[in-house]
């Protein structure tokens, strides 16, 4: 069974170049290495099979979220996946240790080019400014938030660049967990949610 689980979400994959290339590359690695979950294909009616998703998550060591950045965040179905699957008492909170000790890796593309994410340009913030919600989600679940793998200006990059990006992606997926940056990373700090944080449990 694969210990790399890719949760991929792109609402218009038919118009995508970068995300489609990344997904295809990952899928070609074979299911003994990586399991790719194409959310918009699996759940076109937004009815997520929580039990199945949780079973796959429990087996994985590296969890990849692969999606285009939309409105400085994730696509709607991806957010629903987070809401439904990362349940209280399972992923966080009392006895919520299912994901503890795993790694979360964000693989994202942006429409705007890298230099648009600057205080003097139209996106007004460095891209890092949009990452805290991702990072804190990982930490709350006891996961390490591995530095993200980004492709900026995905509409305009050349086909060669997309291919090169996908190639790096594939080699990273295959070489996990032997990544240099992981050696120096500490486990995340504990964020215990007290039992009375929820009214009835």
């Amino acid at each position: 069974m694969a210990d790399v689980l890719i949760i991929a979400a792109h609402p218009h994959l038919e118009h995508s170049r970068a995300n489609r290339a990344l997904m295809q590359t990952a899928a070609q690695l074979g299911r003994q290495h990586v399991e790719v979950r194409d959310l918009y294909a699996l759940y076109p009616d937004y009815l997520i099979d929580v039990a199945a998703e949780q079973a796959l998550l429990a087996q994985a060591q590296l969890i990849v979220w692969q999606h285009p950045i939309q409105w400085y965040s994730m696509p709607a179905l991806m957010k629903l996946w987070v809401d439904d699957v990362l349940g209280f008492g399972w992923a966080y909170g009392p006895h919520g240790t299912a994901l503890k000790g795993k790694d979360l890796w964000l693989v994202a593309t942006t429409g705007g080019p890298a230099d648009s994410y600057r205080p003097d340009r139209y996106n007004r913030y460095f891209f890092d400014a949009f990452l805290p919600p991702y990072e804190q989600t990982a930490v709350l679940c006891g996961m390490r938030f591995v530095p993200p793998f980004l492709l900026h200006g995905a509409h305009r990059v050349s086909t060669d660049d997309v291919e090169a990006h996908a190639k790096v992606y594939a080699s990273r997926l295959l070489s996990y967990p032997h990544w240099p940056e992981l050696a120096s990373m500490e486990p995340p700090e504990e964020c215990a949610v007290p039992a009375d944080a929820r009214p009835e449990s």
Partner: protein
Amino acid sequence: MEHANWLTGSLVYLAAAVLAVPIARVLGLGSIIGYLAAGIVIGPFGLALVGDTQDILHFAEFGVVLMLFLVGLELEPRRLWALRRPIFGWGSVQLIGSAALIFGLGVLAGIGWKLALVAALGLALSSTAIGLGALAERNLMPTTSGQSVLSVALLQDVAAIPILALLPLLATVGVASDVESGASGWWSAAKAIAVVAAIVLGGRLLLRPALRWIARSRTPEIFTAASLLLVVATAALMQAVGLSMALGAFLAGVLLAESEYRRELETDLEPFKGLLLGLFFIAVGMSIDFAVVLQRPGVVVIVVVAFLLLKALVLWGMARAMAIPRPERPVFILLLAQGGEFGFVVFQGAAQAGVIDAPVSSLLMAAVAVSMLLTPLLLVLADRHWIPRLAVGASAQMKEIEEPQNAPIIIAGFGRYGQIVARLLFANGFRATVLDHDAEQVEVVRRFGWPVFYGDATRLDLLRTAGAANARVLVLAIDDMAQSIEVAKLASEHFPHLKIVARARNVRHYYELRDLGIELIERETLDAAVMTGRSVLELVGMRPHQARTLALRFRQHTVAQLELMRPHSQDEAKLIAIAKQGRQQLEELFAQEREQAGRRGQRGGWESQAGSEADR
């Protein structure tokens, strides 16, 4: 004795065709050459297995009649009206131009002007059978060149009548035609016009109700018989007043082109047409008089080459002026340059009237037959060496013309269910071929502007005509369960590539379809009932989004449960046990869902837990 004769005849013709045509096709020569070769082999100058060539030729001419009926079916009156210029304008240019050139050359070569005129008129005609047959074989009928060949062929059919009428006049030239024959001429012209008017009016007013009445008897062979009767009757009417049978059949076809029975007539008559046309080509092969050819081979060769070149010259000019796309020009020129079966009739008639000698007549007929034999061979050569050079850069255009003939989706059944499916597809710009076997239903929905074909999808030949061999999806929306199963079997057996999406009337029907290996099946009541349940949940106080989620979960569970029970569909005790277990699971599932939703409700919304931590 006569019975035995009939049997041996059929044996020889069928065996020759069955052997020669596949061989010709394997060699890449097309079926027409196969038939002609078969005719030469079994004819008087080959193995001499059969005699009476002329009788067979007359009988087989009915194949040409059927072919023109089918061509007419493809041509709505509106489109025929649009073709009036090519027919009368370009058709006349071809006929008069070719005849004038051949006549001029003949007179220059020093043969008598009468002979030159008969030869010119006879040789200017082209073979409708080979021309349209070759177009159909190559799927070129809807192209510009295909329509142009058809236009010229139609004018030749009209013009053959005055040409034949001219022959007796040539024999008695110099003697002024007396008043009596003039009067009878008027009389036959009036009869001819009356018959054409009767066919047009009858076709418009009577044929469709009659066909509907026959179709309602639900006896497929009677519908086939009626189709044949229709063509035979039209042909007989036309012949009675001395007009071309093929032309009458063509007219009848055009009048039925807009009717919902078009596809059915087509599939019913297609095999008859194919076989009779094959017989016709065999007869042409048999009728080549090799004795004449061998006696004066030089003369035959000169005549063939000369008239082919002169006609090709006229056609080449026409192709340029008509702006026929360059890659289509070789086919246009080759198909119309050859002589035709009407040439035989003209030369025979001329010999009988004493305008030309019998040996000259058979020499001309041999020349025509040789040109008909050459044409398919020249086409094969043109395909390999000429057209590819012209087609550079024009291939994309060709493809577009071919596409409309076969939609990627076939919808069987256009009742309440099929209509919804079709509307969704049409609204998204997808083309679908819709079939329904209920004539009255077809009549009604056609009034609303739906392009629906009348036809029984349980018939393999109709499915094939609807394009099943090339389509990707078959929507099985038939309400009759037995028929639905029958179509599913037929389609999965003969068109394994075709994805079937089926409507199931009930659970039993669902299992039967499932056992045939069909995976995409919808139970017709499930979704509507689930939606009703969802509305009730909302009315008794659930939030719309929660009602939606519960309804969808219920649906998912029900479908999964149905699959779970499938292996035990015969075992009632087991079914009840599974059903009970399933109901319990469902209740537990819903209890969980409600619990979660309730907690969220108390917290007043959907915000993430960590975020609300800060709110407190």
